[in-house]
């Protein structure tokens, strides 16, 4: 399939450790890549800087459109205000909890599903796959799902945040595809010859080889939990269990009510002030944990990570 793949093994070894020299064409290509990436980063950085600047600026300067890039009228009031609301502080803790617990549970389920489905020749695999894929297209809808969660006694518990979303078929399919690429059938056969059971092979060979995809799964599930609000709205009625996004949603969307329908202008004015004050600081707070986590995921995206672990 690839030219490189057909190289004889000894030639490959030869290359190891030899100094890599860029050709002129390579240098030009690299320069282009650096420039393009740099420009794109700048374009992406702008909204980030804007949001951070707005969060530490005087709210009236923000609403007057005076903040373009850097903070105007520096103040940390917006962050202090966050701590005035018990709901925000406790919701932050809840979100972290749901993200971590949800990611762990979901990743385990995903790996358990994806590995067998990646093995060729497993009888019934096609049917099982179809069962999974079908649920991506058809769902029972809100009310019946709610009824199920209710009948399982999960309503208003932390489990309601974790179990109904404990598996995303999308992730299963991606993980399965990854396994198919990285765990060749020859390796499985070799394991069999060594007397490895399927459990043992999965535990001792597959998992260590799959750190990147495990990291990606943890990240994707954690992020999905972190960004989700809908299950909380539907399954929880105890504000001490609410995640941050529910609060954020109130600030960002609830305050967008049609003012002409608002029987109380002073309430409207209050809402507006609350929104202006908290909007950006809440977004910043909501962005910090995912950004902190990313480097831990990222370190697994090293070329040849899996080779190293197998050799070691």
């Amino acid at each position, binding site marked *: 399939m690839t*030219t490189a793949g057909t190289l004889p093994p000894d030639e*490959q070894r030869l290359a190891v450790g030899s100094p890599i020299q860029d050709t002129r064409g390579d240098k030009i290509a690299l320069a282009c890549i650096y420039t*393009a990436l740099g420009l794109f980063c700048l374009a992406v950085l702008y909204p980030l800087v804007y949001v951070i600047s707005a969060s530490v600026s005087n709210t009236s300067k923000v609403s007057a459109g005076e903040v373009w890039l850097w903070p105007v009228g520096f103040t940390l009031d917006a962050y202090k205000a966050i701590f005035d609301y018990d709901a925000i502080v406790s919701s932050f803790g809840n979100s972290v909890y749901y993200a971590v617990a949800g990611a762990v549970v979901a990743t385990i389920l995903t790996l358990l599903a994806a590995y067998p489905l990646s093995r060729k020749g497993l009888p019934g695999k096609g049917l099982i796959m179809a069962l999974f894929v079908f649920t991506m297209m058809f769902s029972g809808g809100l009310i019946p799902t709610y009824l199920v969660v209710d009948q399982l006694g999960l309503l208003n518990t932390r489990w309601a945040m974790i179990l109904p979303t404990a598996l995303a078929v999308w992730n299963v399919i991606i993980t399965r595809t990854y396994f198919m690429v990285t765990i060749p059938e*020859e390796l499985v056969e070799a394991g069999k010859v060594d007397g490895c059971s399927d459990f043992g092979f999965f535990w001792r060979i597959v998992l260590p080889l799959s750190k990147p995809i495990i990291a990606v799964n943890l990240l994707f599930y954690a992020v999905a939990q972190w960004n989700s609000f809908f299950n909380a709205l539907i399954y929880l009625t105890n504000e001490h269990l609410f995640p941050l996004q529910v609060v954020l949603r109130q600030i960002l969307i609830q305050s967008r009510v049609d003012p002409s329908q608002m029987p109380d202008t002073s309430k409207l004015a209050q809402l507006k002030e609350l929104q202006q004050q908290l909007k950006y600081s809440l*977004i910043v707070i909501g962005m910090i944990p995912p950004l902190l986590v990313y480097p831990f995921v990222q370190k697994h995206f090293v070329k040849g990570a899996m080779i190293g672990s197998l050799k070691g």
Partner: protein
Amino acid sequence: MTASTETRAGDRPATQPPAGRRSPNGHQKGRVKASKPSVRLGLRMRRNWQLYAMLALPLIWLAIFAYWPMYGVIIAFKDYNVVSGIWGSPWAGFKHFDRFIESYQFWKLIRNTVYLHVYELVATFPLPIILALCLNTIRKKWFSRSAQLITYAPHFISTVVVVGLVVVLTNPNTGVANKFIGLFGFGPVDIMGDAGMFRHIYVWSGAWQTMGFAAIIYLAALTSVPPELHEAAIVDGASRLRRMWHIDLPAIVPVAVILLILNIGSILSVGFEKVLLMQNNLNLDTAEVIDTYVYKIGLASAVPQFSYATAIGLFRSVIGLVLLVLANTFARRFAKSSLW
């Protein structure tokens, strides 16, 4: 040399027998693998019991949280109201489907949704792949890592804020976009009020927001490329771009094909919240999509329209499933990669 180094990235398709050779209930009619002739199904199932055991938990989950509630689709065929319940509400046949299909805006909705989705797919699908390849190829680790982190971050900015920023940038009086076209002697124009511009703004602002996040999956796939391949290719004198094309890209293709198939299955869905936020009275000709329409029906309705919404959802699912199966068949034949 270990087994894995011999694996060529991208040879995965060979690992799967064509699903068409099986009957729907999973009985194996043909032979699975040339190396294992005449092993009976029962025996092979017993041999693989540990794999089935692993599948048990996910399947139980699937049964409870995905299949159990699925009886709810009959809401689409009833005049459902919450007090009478799913079983107690009167049957309505295909009334709600007819209502949707005969609806004044039906074709406009389908057209807008499909255009928007396809445009988004075509325009933005390759971008994370290119980004991942670029990030993967540069050797300055600090640069690659910071670029990854920066491009990943916008995923966490709320849609409300992103749309707000787009409005600022396109403002006819103060927006950067208008200042820019002003340099060429155009404008100022109200870009957000131009129905023709809606799709471009939606798609490209989406690319800008989600490209970095979407690249993660490809970055993970790229880790399966053994460095030896690159080293050998360098010895052969392959340029950087050639190596990207011949070594890195094939490692990504299987994942990309799968993502593409899944994406085609959701052709009648688009990012609801963002479309709604970007809508205004002037761009409704292009910006009204199925999701926003259902939302507005709900908003305008004095009594919740569960049945109607479920019927529209079901309509969408059926179309999606048909396309998904087609795409999968197509992919199996031509890309040698498929869902099942």
